[in-house]
């Protein structure tokens, strides 16, 4: 079936450096993508989203890039801080589910910021 996957399960980055978390998706009909951050003992927290008609979207210290040709999504975090340490999930909503909001999650990438 369709799924969202991640290239790397773990990533360690020096504090102050930039980090890039990658995600591959297999459903070419996907309409909408979201990055969530999940800290230990907490639920997923919305970071940034992007629709399939966009290639790039920026937020505060974060940028999401979408490459529909190779079905690849990435999350860039600038000037990482200790509070950025968490598991990051990408999730997708296929266009067929518009209005029904069924999220399909990947396994996640654990980001560790080294002081």
């Amino acid at each position, binding site marked *: 079936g369709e799924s969202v996957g991640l290239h790397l399960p773990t990533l360690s980055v020096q504090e102050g450096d930039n980090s890039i978390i990658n995600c591959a998706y297999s459903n070419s009909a996907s309409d909408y993508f979201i990055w969530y951050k999940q800290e230990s003992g907490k*639920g997923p927290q919305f970071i940034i989203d992007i629709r399939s008609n966009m290639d790039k979207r920026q937020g505060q210290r974060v940028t999401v890039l979408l490459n529909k040709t190779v079905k690849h999504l990435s999350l860039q975090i600038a000037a990482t801080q200790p509070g950025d340490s968490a598991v990051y*999930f990408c999730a997708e909503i296929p266009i067929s589910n518009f209005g029904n909001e069924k999220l399909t999650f990947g*396994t*996640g990438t654990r980001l560790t910021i080294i002081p």
Partner: protein
Amino acid sequence: DAGVTQSPTHLIKTRGQQVTLRCSPKSGHDTVSWYQQALGQGPQFIFQYYEEEERQRGNFPDRFSGHQFPNYSSELNVNALLLGDSALYLCASSSLTGGRPQHFGDGTRLSIL
């Protein structure tokens, strides 16, 4: 502005028992979705409620059922608990007409002995 709230935070049950988990959506949201998150995995969609009806269901057995109340709050019920039902159960809310994304609560950690 209260976010999504879930209760209880932790729960311990034994095999064969039944459990009810509760969720209050974020203010202004009318749609509630439930997810199961096994340790080290991403959340898996269970089902979604809107206008007190189940609108969509994931690949979960009938032992998993739910309900949505007129105030948009929701319950997840699991019957005949199995050891494999041990997981973090997450509730997410959204506004069907107000746009995305879904906002999550901190979940209920269910342990089956």
